[in-house]
């Protein structure tokens, strides 16, 4: 292989190098890419590389949160105030998000996933500092309906909202608080994702009423929703893309296993709690039901 035949990578326009390196995600850029050569280092230090920061890195289970936190702050610093989009998995704390919010008043998109260290109130407080926000997604993070109301009111430009959690059929808990909060305070939504939510048809109707501009609605694993009749009609007519409760989860980035709490039948479970004999549930019953967890025929029992 003739050295002379190789194109000089440095000849690639910086935007192209930037585009390539950007796809590696914030952590790998900081730890790896910027240490390869001077031209890459230059590209990696340029603020334009840090306008959109991806700290998802699902593969980095080994890095401690402390380090990742520092890296995140570092990444935000490099944006020099021009941060518009950031996605953080796992390591977000109140302090970190405050740090980001204080330096990035122009933030348009915030996506958090698996951030167990921040409470709903904390999140609410931070979002109040980001009035220009257009996209908010929280997956498996604490976010109450109350907080959602406050957020909706503080962020009038919100176009895309997502709150994803674990879906389950049993026990059949119903809760429309979140749906109502959204319907009340987020009229401008064009995109809504409520994976695994406990809302019922009541909540769905409220959303359809309150968010007339919806173009994309994801209700996968919202097992309390019965998308038939009028509701179904409204959805399919007005909304371009509807993901129904039982639709495929192949493109869902998180674990979509349905973890039903169970016994052989819902009613039995409730009645038998006080029954001494049933204090110890036989293991077999559990196994049976778990294996059938994703079996759609289960749904029929609860109509």
């Amino acid at each position, binding site marked *: 292989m003739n050295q002379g035949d190789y194109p000089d990578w*440095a000849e690639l326009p910086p935007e*192209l190098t930037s585009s*390539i390196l950007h796809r590696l995600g914030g952590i790998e850029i900081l730890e790896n890419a910027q*240490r390869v050569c001077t031209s890459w280092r230059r590209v990696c230090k340029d603020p334009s590389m840090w306008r959109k920061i991806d700290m998802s890195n699902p593969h980095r289970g080994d890095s401690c949160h402390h380090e990742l936190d520092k890296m995140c702050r570092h990444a935000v610093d490099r944006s020099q105030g021009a941060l518009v989009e950031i996605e953080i998995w796992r390591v977000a704390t109140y302090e970190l998000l405050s740090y980001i919010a204080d330096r990035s008043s122009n933030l348009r998109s915030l996506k958090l996933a698996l951030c167990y260290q921040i409470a709903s109130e904390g999140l609410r407080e931070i979002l109040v500092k980001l009035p220009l926000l257009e996209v908010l997604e929280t997956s498996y993070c604490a976010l109450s309906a109350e907080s959602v109301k406050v957020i909706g009111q503080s962020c009038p430009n919100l176009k895309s909202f997502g709150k994803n959690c674990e879906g389950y059929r049993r026990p059949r808990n119903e809760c429309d608080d979140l749906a109502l909060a959204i319907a009340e305070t987020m009229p401008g939504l064009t995109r809504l994702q409520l994976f695994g939510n406990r809302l019922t048809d009541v909540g769905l109707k409220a959303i359809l009423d309150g968010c007339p501009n919806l173009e994309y609605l994801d209700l996968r694993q919202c097992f309390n929703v019965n998308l038939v009749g009028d509701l179904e009609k409204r959805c399919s007519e007005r909304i371009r893309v509807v993901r129904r409760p039982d639709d495929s989860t192949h493109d869902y980035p998180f674990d979509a296993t349905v973890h039903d709490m169970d016994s052989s039948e819902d009613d039995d479970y409730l009645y038998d709690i006080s029954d001494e004999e049933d204090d110890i549930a036989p293991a077999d019953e559990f196994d049976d039901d778990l294996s059938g967890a994703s079996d759609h025929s289960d749904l029929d029992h609860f109509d």
Partner: protein
Amino acid sequence: MSESDLAIMKREMMQSYIWLKTADGSIQRVEQEIAMFFPMICQEVVYKGVGTSKNHAISLPQQVNQAVFSLILDYCRFHKVPGRSNKERKSYDQKFIRMDSKMLRELASAADSLQLKPLVDLTCRTLARTIEGKPLEEIREILNLPDDLTEEEKLEPLKNTMDDPGIRLLNRLNAKKRKELKERERLKNVEVEEHAVERSVDDLISFINGGDPKVVKTSKGKKKNKKKKNKKIVSSNDKEGAEDFHDKESHDLHSKQQGVEETGSGIREVEVANLLSTEDDIFTLKSWSEDGYIDDEIDPVMKEMLDREIEDFARRLNSNWVRSRGQERRPVHFSMNGNGTIRRHIGYNLDVIM
């Protein structure tokens, strides 16, 4: 001739072509609908009227040679067909992109120059995947990149070289203090000299209560060694070994010691103590820096300012004083030992018997 042959012939005849010239001089005839895929070609055709004949072929950008162009054309021809499903397109892309990194890079470059966004995305995505998670050396090998970073550059931002965080943090911590000192220096420098000297000697004597002969002697000797510094530094010069008890802002301690160094030979301990305490600083700061990003918390502009200030300050003072390490002027506390000698506490319990 069959029906389909006729149809093909008809299509051929009705087809208009755009003439393009690749970077390596090859003239290509491309169906108009494909050629118009490329924004820059569109522009050339519409606004300049070129490309309609062999003699007026549109020159493609320099990144687009014949081989790469042929690939691009294949790509466009496939994707322009409307009926294809997403799955089909995806599958085609996966196969299409199978080539070595060199070709991939050329393709990316060419697609970029032709503003063909979907292909740019595809190639960039693939290139990113090629280097993802790979060790540095391998990346350099795959892409033929030079290993031209300095050791220091390679280590940041996770680890800083031993000195850096020390210096930088010190600078940061002391910037304000230095400013204050400078101010006082400017205002009071000359005047205070004498007064300070006398007062300090008196103080010394009264404190020591009979005094340490060694201390007093050398302090006298020190007078000659007066330099034009700020008040505290000057005053301390005269006291030499015995430091400034009352003066809590004796950051100049170290500088005093440096000054002492010049004349006093018996002041080895001072030197050592000086260095040791400086190293203490660096050690403490190192533990900070292990955490990482202290260095980068400093706004680069601010950092430059600080650096300039330090240089400035260093120039004003005797350059002997400010060596390569930032020297912290920390208050030093003194206490009397049982036997009347003075113990000086430096930072972290590093005592020096004078």
